[in-house]
């Protein structure tokens, strides 16, 4: 991999240089400020960068703003970005993920942790083309026609607090290091997503998912949260602010907003997506893999609610109140 590391401390850049030398066949490029990095990236001779490593706190433009700038470019819209942080304040880490970071490593570094994070990034970079499709505001004809499987996670850009699914997994894995007292995970599933998937073109499907993400994000605004599209019509959310969402009320609010939003397919026919909400699962006193299990519970409960709703349409006598 070709890695671009940006840190205002020359000692950190030297350490990373030594580190990259011993872990394998990577090439490290460095910049000591965000502006230098952007200037270097604007140079056509720099070649492709496979991974970025950004210090969060830098004078001038910080690593969070640099991440936003990088994500705005089509070339690096989904290139892994590993944040380097010495801060224990989670607000910075949350902001970095919301800006588009893929993962983070805390300073001082330890070989084992840094190696494992780089390995995850390397695997993600290699597997990305197979697992994740992209949405751009202006997609090429080729991209529009690219098929996406129903179960595939989709990267959604330019929607506040929506991050890639792999970044969400990394974020949740890192959560187990800190207190989970105020953390809750919950999910929404677009009802009859398989019918939408079957009837819409790939681009229309991308657009539908993206539009629903926007409505969800707008509805959740005012709360601290991160959200990701996990595939199969399901959005997984996590909040750490101590907020305990009322899922039935939230689902109603989302569906009301969806009813007020005019969404059309390419033939001008209006589409009417609605969501079902799963259970809000608290993460308190969970650790390690049980945090991931909680995420899976939230996910599957939303899908079950969506299925129950679909069944209720054909079986009048079995109506689930929430679905």
């Amino acid at each position, binding site marked *: 991999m070709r890695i671009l590391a940006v840190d205002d401390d020359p000692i950190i850049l030297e*350490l990373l240089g030594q580190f990259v030398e011993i872990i394998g066949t990577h090439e490290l490029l460095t910049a000591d400020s965000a502006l230098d990095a952007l200037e270097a990236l604007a140079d056509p001779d720099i070649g492709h960068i496979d991974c970025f490593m950004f210090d969060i706190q830098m004078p001038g433009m910080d690593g969070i703003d640099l991440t936003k700038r990088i994500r705005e470019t089509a070339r690096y819209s989904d290139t892994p970005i590993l944040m380097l942080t010495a801060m224990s304040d989670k607000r910075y880490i949350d902001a970095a993920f919301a800006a588009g970071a893929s993962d983070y490593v805390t300073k*001082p570094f*330890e070989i084992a942790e840094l190696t494992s994070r780089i390995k995850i990034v390397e695997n993600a970079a290699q597997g990305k083309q197979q697992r994740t499709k992209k949405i751009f505001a202006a997609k090429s004809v080729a991209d529009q026609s690219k098929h996406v499987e129903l179960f595939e996670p989709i990267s959604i850009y330019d929607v506040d607090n929506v991050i890639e699914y792999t970044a969400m997994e990394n974020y949740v894995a890192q959560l187990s290091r800190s207190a989970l007292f105020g953390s809750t995970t919950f999910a929404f599933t677009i009802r009859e997503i398989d019918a939408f998937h079957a009837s819409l073109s790939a681009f229309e499907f991308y657009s539908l998912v993206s539009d629903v993400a926007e409505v969800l994000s707008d509805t959740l605004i005012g709360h601290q949260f991160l959200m990701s599209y996990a595939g199969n019509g399901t959005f997984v959310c996590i909040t750490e602010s101590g907020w305990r969402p009322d899922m039935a009320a939230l689902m109603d609010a989302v569906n009301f907003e969806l009813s007020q939003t005019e969404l059309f397919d390419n033939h001008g026919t209006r589409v009417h997506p609605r969501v079902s909400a799963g259970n809000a699962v608290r993460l308190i006193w969970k650790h390690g893999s049980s945090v991931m299990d909680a995420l899976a519970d939230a996910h599957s409960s939303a899908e079950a609610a969506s299925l129950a709703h679909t069944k209720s349409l054909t079986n009048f006598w079995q109506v689930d109140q929430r679905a």
Partner: protein
Amino acid sequence: MTKLMTELPGIERIRTRFIEMLAERQTQIASYGLAAWDGETVEEINSNLAGAQAILHQIAGSAGSLGFEELGQTARNCELQIVDHLAGPDADLAICPIELISALDSFVALCRKETDALS
């Protein structure tokens, strides 16, 4: 000492560079601390404290990786004390708490100990 310290080749060269920079950085921190202590306006005090905090942040980030755990932890504690003050209720008052200056003084003394030991 962290695993990074013991396993990386070329670490001695980086440690030497770090100590050379530490001599310069401790002087900068002391200058910022004195200027904050002598400052008469909120802006003067807070900008000098922020200057010291930025350098402490760098030291805290790299010292531990190079085997200077105590130095890194002390830098982190000083940094957090300044961050707390700048985000606290007294941040808009022209006050430089003696506790901050005392913490910076202890940190500079620790830097001198490290630089003297390796010079």
